[in-house]
């Protein structure tokens, strides 16, 4: 069954990435370019995963847009991960409740 192969590959790859360096690495990386790539990679990944997917994440564009704006606003205020996630959800939820009434 392909699903179990998927799960096995994900668990294996994710674990090895964490384990091999922690278990065996003994030196320091000094190349400024390489350090840069490693440093910027998570932001690049999250960016390309979030846009445009966030705009379709609630199945309806208006509530998704309001939720996105809420997340952007709280992100600018440097609120915690959980606060931003919950407020974005709440904003999208309230919008989709109000929308049919307009």
């Amino acid at each position, binding site marked *: 069954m392909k*699903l179990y*192969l*998927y*799960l096995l*590959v*994900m*668990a294996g*790859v*994710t*674990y090895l*990435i*964490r*384990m*091999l*360096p*922690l*278990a065996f*690495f*003994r030196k320091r990386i000094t190349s*400024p*370019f390489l*350090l*840069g*790539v*490693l*440093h*910027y*990679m*998570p*932001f*690049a*990944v*999250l*960016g*390309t*995963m*979030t846009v*445009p997917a*966030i705009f379709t*994440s*609630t*199945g309806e564009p208006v*509530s998704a847009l309001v*939720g*996105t704006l809420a*997340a*952007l606003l709280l*992100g600018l205020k*440097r*609120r*915690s*991960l*959980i*606060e*931003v*996630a*919950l407020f*974005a*959800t709440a904003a999208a*939820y309230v919008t989709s409740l109000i929308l049919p009434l307009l």
Partner: protein
Amino acid sequence: MEAYGYKEGVRDGLPIGLGYLSVSFGFAIWAVKQGIPGLALIVLSGTNLTSAGQVAGVTVMAAGGLLVELALTELVINLRYALMSVTLTQKLSPEFSLWQRMAASFFVTDEIFAVSSTRKGLLTFPYMMGLGCLPWIGWTLGTALGAFAGALLPAVLSAALGIAIYGMFMAILVPGALEEKGVLLAICAAVSLGLILRYVPLFRFLSEGFVIIISAVLGACIAAWRKPIEAGEGEA
């Protein structure tokens, strides 16, 4: 130098665990909608303990992607853990054995790394185990609750929860972009490349997993080329 034990680890892990519980709840509701069975999601969360990697993985799985595509996607997205692991090696107490390093490495996530790497003094094996335990329980339990109790929620609420995981990503992206021009550049480059690869008909043959890999690697390279990081400044 001061060292910390299991109890201190558990205490430090509590807020992380509570945060993971609610985010993985939203993740599971979203993932069930992509067509992945609930039990598989619990196994996935219990063995991966990572948000971005799991969202990308579920996307590739739902599209019936190739195993090599899935492996490459996880490699690129989770590459940051390799750097965090390298950084942590500098702080491990000397009595850490090889198998203890192998066990502790399972718990390297952004939040656990942030807490452990900023702790004063050396990291002990009991501390790392204590630190990882509540986040692991929170992440796996939240996934189970979302996968099986999520169906009990009203449709409007469960639709709105689809944005939760992206909200969490925004909470990482926006402050990062505010603080560093390089990060802002990496995000803009990766997002622009991603939009081109997704919407220009010429690239329609690329699946979602490869779009993420290509746009993220190129975006990070462009940022690293314009704004390289001197050794010592990019590790925290």
